[in-house]
């Protein structure tokens, strides 16, 4: 509580004096009616949802996706940073050594499961991710017929990537191309394309 408020900080407002024009009521009423009628014909702001889909802001936090790198492999390096950062504990990763032909990759997620019902869509996972592998897309109409349907595995999350890339609705944060700086050491031997 501040006690430093002094009289000069307090702004006193007097009720405006009404002249003859205002006291006749009618001119003011007509003025108001003009405003009312003009609103009858203005463009309506309502979006008729099922027929007319809203365009979400590019930084909307919707369904997750797992990004692919330039060769179509999952970008994720199974570092567990997202699972650690997740306040809702909805990410479950099982790491495995990367296949031999994945040059310069040490680990990859064998399974990557997100429970979309537990997720609170806070975006901490994508902030934590050092290689920009996990991202929240602008897909908002997430529905399912059972709880099991909404537990998304790796394939599902990668398909969300394919779907959003195809639709051209990449989230604003996407960095395409090579992995992020955290994987620099892992990629040291690979010549940049």
């Amino acid at each position: 509580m501040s006690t430093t408020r002094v009289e000069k900080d307090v702004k006193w407002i007097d009720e405006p004096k009404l002249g003859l024009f205002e006291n006749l009521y009618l001119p003011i009423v007509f003025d108001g009616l003009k405003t009312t009628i003009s609103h009858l014909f203005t463009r309506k702001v309502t979006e008729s949802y099922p027929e007319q889909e809203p365009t979400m802001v590019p930084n909307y936090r919707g369904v997750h996706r797992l990004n692919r790198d330039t060769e179509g492999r999952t970008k994720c390096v199974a570092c567990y940073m997202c699972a650690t950062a997740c306040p809702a504990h909805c990410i479950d990763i099982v790491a495995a050594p990367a296949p031999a032909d994945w040059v310069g990759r040490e680990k990859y997620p064998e399974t990557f499961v997100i429970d979309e019902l537990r997720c609170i869509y806070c975006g901490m996972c994508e902030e934590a991710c050092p290689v920009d592998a996990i991202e929240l897309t602008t897909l908002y109409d997430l529905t399912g017929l059972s709880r099991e349907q909404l537990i998304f595995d790796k394939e599902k999350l990668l398909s969300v990537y394919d779907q959003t890339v195809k639709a051209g609705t990449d989230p604003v944060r996407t960095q395409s191309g090579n992995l992020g700086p955290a994987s620099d050491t892992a990629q040291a031997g690979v010549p940049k394309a």
Partner: protein
Amino acid sequence: MPEFNWQYTGLIIAAVIGTIMGYIAYLILLERWVAAWVQDRFGPNRVGPYGLLQPIADGGKMFLKEEVIPGHVDKVFFVMAPIVAFSTALLALAVVPIGSTVAPPPAQPTFAAFETVQAEYASHFSTVIVPALDIGILYSFALGSLAVYSVILAGWSSNNKFSLLGSMRSSAQIISYEIPLGMSIVGVLLFTQSLNLETVIQYQQDHTWFLFTQPLAFLLFLTSVYAECNRLPFDLPEAEQELVGGYHTEYSNSMKLGLMLLAEYAHMITTSFLMSIVFLGGWGLFGLESLVENAYAAFAVKLLILTGKMSAFVVLFLLVRWTIPRFRFDQLMSLAWKVMIPLSILNVLAATLVRQFNITPWAMTGVSAVLFVGAGLIAVRNGPVNNAPRKLKKPLPPGLQAGVTYAAR
């Protein structure tokens, strides 16, 4: 007296009630649309094309809802209130012309002459349920004021403090606004020398619309009508913010509530008809309606003109709702007792003088303007109406900075 033709009367009653019910149904849809459009929304547009079947869905919903009568209410009056509301609202329409009419003939010196003119009059067809009723507009006013009983009955029998408060406000409001409502048309009736609405229309055909010769009376009538119909800015009986639902809080959303709401809209339609007839010349439109030669076409044209005027007033009702904020109760009362009643008395006085000394009726236009501006000047001189209780100003304790009142406690 024209002979009572039960076929005509039955036909008109059926036509009027049927049309009015349909009109009200779509009026409610229009009200919702206007409300939405003014707020830059779409409004009901899901049921049928452009939402045009919405009234049917609404009506079906109301009929199918369970009729709940709460245990703590007075059952007889609780059930009676919607009936009173609806029946008075419909009965008030009985004397209101809805299309072309013929004025009943004036008094005749001999009985033979009387018989002749009456026979001539009986050959005409007037689109009124009760033509040639001499008390005309008084009957309509009387039934219109009976509508307050429904509000009081509903509020009181509900045994609920909010409903009672709403109905008490309503009774005070309606009784206050009856006075300027009645007084404002006295000036008109002095000129027409008849309470009969067909004669009022005929007078305006012969002379000019009362809107032009008595604008102040029109303004007073219009304002009082808004209060009588419990429409915004005078919708205190159902102030949702303060009174839950007002007098119909205890009515579940069943047909009892539906009847109350229908009655409200029926009241709007009746008063809109009255305004068009008394001040806007009824089915007349500056002689344009007489250009149509064919009798049937002329009938249709007159019907269209009058209903068009009525609809314009109804739309004004809807627009004003979203234009003027609600009055506080004390402001409402001061408007009636300190502004409108004195103005209407002065208006009647002026009309009496103009009539007595046979001055041209156009003098009333000037008098109206003078009274209107004069009232404004008095308001400027007296400053804003402030009936709010004076707040006691506590002197600040010494040594404390001004404006820091919280710390002092």
